[in-house]
C-alpha cells in the first residue's frame, strides 16, 4: 500500500509537477507552488495533504483541470496566511482536525491513503451529512466554499470550466440552451 505522501505525490506528478501549478500569467497572485508533502506558509504538511486530497475529490480533473491541477490548496494556504484573522485560522485548523477524524473513521484507516473509490465514498457521505443537518460539519462547508471559490478564481476554473468572458460586449437576455 502506498503511503499517503506517495499517493498524493503520484497525483501531482501525473498532472505535470508541482512547479507548474501556480503559473497563470504575469499578474497572477503569489500562490506558492506547493507540493503535497511540503508544508505551506500556513498549512502543515499533513494539513496540506488533506486539503489537496479533499479539493481533488470535490473538483476533480475532467475535460478541464481540477482543483489539484490548479493548486487550490496553495491558494487556500495563501488565503489563510494573508487574509484570515487569527480566529479564522484557528477555526479552520479545528475544522481540518474534525474533518480528518471523521474521514479516517469512515475508512477505518488513513483517509488520504485509501483508494479513490473509498475516498470518494467517505467524502460523499460526509458531504451529504454536512448539507443535511449536521451543524458540526460547518467547518467543512466553509472549506468546500473556499475550495470552490478559489478554483473558479483561477484562470482554468474561470475560463475553461465556467466559460467566463472578460469582455462580453453585449447583453443577451434570452439565450437558448443547446441540450447537446
Amino acid at each position, binding site marked *: 500500500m502506498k503511503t499517503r505522501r506517495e499517493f498524493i505525490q503520484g497525483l501531482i506528478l501525473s498532472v505535470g509537477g508541482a512547479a507548474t501549478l501556480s503559473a497563470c500569467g504575469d499578474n497572477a497572485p503569489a500562490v506558492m507552488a506547493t507540493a503535497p508533502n511540503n508544508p505551506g506558509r500556513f498549512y502543515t504538511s499533513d494539513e496540506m495533504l488533506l486539503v489537496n486530497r479533499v479539493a481533488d475529490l470535490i473538483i476533480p480533473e475532467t475535460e478541464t483541470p481540477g482543483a489539484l491541477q490548479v493548486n487550490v490548496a496553495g491558494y487556500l494556504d495563501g488565503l489563510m496566511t494573508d*487574509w484570515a484573522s487569527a480566529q479564522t485560522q484557528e477555526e479552520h485548523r479545528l475544522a481540518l482536525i474534525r474533518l480528518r477524524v471523521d474521514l479516517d473513521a469512515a475508512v477505518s484507516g488513513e483517509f488520504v491513503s485509501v483508494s479513490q473509490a473509498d475516498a470518494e465514498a467517505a467524502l460523499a457521505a460526509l458531504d451529504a451529512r454536512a448539507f443535511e443537518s449536521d451543524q458540526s460539519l460547518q467547518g467543512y462547508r466553509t472549506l468546500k*466554499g473556499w475550495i470552490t471559490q478559489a478554483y473558479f478564481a483561477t484562470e482554468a476554473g*474561470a475560463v475553461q470550466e465556467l466559460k467566463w468572458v472578460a469582455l462580453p460586449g453585449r447583453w443577451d437576455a434570452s439565450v437558448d440552451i443547446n441540450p447537446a
Partner: protein
Amino acid sequence: MADFDAIVVGSGMSGGMSAKELTERGLKVLVLERGPEIIPERDYTDNLNPWEKPNLDSVPQDEIAEHYPRQYGGVAYAIKESTKHFWVKDSEHPYEEAEGTTYDWLRGYHTAGRSIMWSRQTYRLSDLDFGANQREGHAIDWPIRYADIEPWYKKVETFVGISGSAEGLPQLPDSVFQPAFELTDAEKSLKASVEGAFPERNVIPARIAHLTDATEEQKELGRSNCQVRNHCHQGCSFKAYFSSLNATLPAAERTGNMTLVHNAIVQSVEYDAATNRVSGVRVIDALTNEKRTYTAKVLFLNASTIASAMILLQSKSETFPNGLANHSDQVGRNLMDHVSGANASGYLSGFDNKTTFGRRPSGGIYIPRYANLDGQDKPYRRGFGFQGGATSVGNAGGQIPGIGRAFKEAHRMPSAWRIGIGAFGEQLSNPDNRVTLHASKRDKWGNPLALFNVKYSDNEYTMLQEASKDAVAMLEAAGCTNITATDVNLTKPGNRIHEMGSARMGRDRDTSVLNGWCQAHDVPNLFITDGSFMTSAGCQNPSLTYMAFSARAANYAADLIEEGVL
C-alpha cells in the same frame, strides 16, 4: 478682486455638474476636493481578471476590523481588495452616533466622490413627490414643482446617458433614454403576471446611468457603450457608466475654465456682514495641514448632505452664531435616507432551457411606486419602489451538496431561475433627525466630528411591513415557488447612501435654508445643490435630481453674475 468667479466645494455627483455648467457659461471655477486625485489609468481596477485578484479579492479580516468596520458593515458587497481605495478608512474619518441611535455614513473622499461607487439607478421625481408635503400638511412645501425642473432633467439626462424604457407613468416620468437592458424571460413572465394581477403596478427595466447608444458628445468625452462586464464598483475604463470623473469633470476641464485642487478640506466659509455675501472658503491641506483661503463671487456647496451642513455649522459669525445661513435653525436637520429591509425571493420554473449572455450591471427590474398614488389608500404615507431581477442562478460559492464531476459541472450549468426584489421606501422628514457638530471630538485636522441622531418613524416601520407582504404577493402571483421573505429589518439610516435634507428648500426663510433655486435665503451668493436641498425624499434614487437641480442653480447663478446681481 476674487480669485475665481465661483468655488465649487466637492467634485462628486452634484459638484461635477455644478462645475460643468458654471464653466460652460464662461465662469472661472475652482473645484475643491477634500481627497486625493483618482487617475483612471492608475486607480481603476476594472480590467483585472478574477485570477489577478488574490485571496478571492477579499480585504484581510484584520484590516477590515482596524480600518473599515463601519464601511464594510454597510456595503461589504462593494469593499474588496481591488476597490477599498474608493472608500474612506473609518480609522481616519470617524463619526459619532447619539445614544440609542445608529447611522451608516458610507463614503469615499477622492476625485468624483461617490459617483465612482454608486449603483447608477436613475429616476426622476414627479409632482407626486414635489406636492407630497403640501397635500399631507407635513413639514413644509417644496417651493417648486415638476414643471420647473423637467427641462433640467432633460438636459442632464441627455449629457449623462440613461438606459431605460419609456413607460408613460405619471409617478415616474420618463427620462431621455438610451436603449434599456432587455428583461430576461423570467422577468417578462413576472411582468405579465404582476401587471395582470395588480393593474396599478408595473414591472419595468431598471433605469441606469449606462451608455447603450453613446451620443457624439459622449464619444467626444472618451465615453463608449457599456461592455456588460458588471465591474462597475472597480471604476470603468470605458467610461460607460456615468461618474463625474467619466463625464462632467472632463467636460468642465475642456472649457479651460476649471481649476481642480485636491486634498483641500474646507473648514469654514468666510462671510462679509457688510455686503451680506460669502467671500470665500478657508481650507486645510489634508496632506500638509497648510491653511489657505480662496475667494470667489459665488460659492456652491456640493460637499454632500452631511459635509455641507457641517461646513455651514462650522462657519459661525456674529450675524450667524448658529452657523452660516442658519437663521431658520434647519441646517443639519431633516436628515433623510431611503429605507430598505423588505426583501423577498422565489424560484420561477419554465425557463430551464434559457440562459443569458453578458453580466448586466446594477439590477434588472424596477417596480415603481404604486402606493397612495391617488390619495391615501394605505396604512402608511408615501410609498416605495422595488428593485430586483431574475437570473438563472449559478451555483457559486460551493454551497450545494455533492462532490466530483457532477458538483463541478453544476457550476456552469444554468440552474433554477430565482427572482428577488427589495423595497426602497421614502423616509419622512423630521427636524429631530439631524447631524450636529460633536461638542468635543475632532478629527486629525481639528474639524469637529459629525454627531448623528436619526431614528425612523412608525411610518417607515409600517411601510416596510406592508412592502414585505406586497413582495410576497407579487411573487406568488408570478407563480414563484420556494418563496422566502426575510424578517423585516430596516436598514440603518444612511445605509442606502441617499442622504438628503440637511439644508432644505422652501419659500420661507424662517423654516427653510434655501429658496427654490438652491440659493440660501440668508446669503444670496451661496448655493447648495447636493442632497441637502431636498425637502422630501421621494422613494427614487436621488442622484439624477441632485444633478438637475445643480444644473438649474448653476445657470441661475451665472445669470445673476451676468446681470451684475452677484
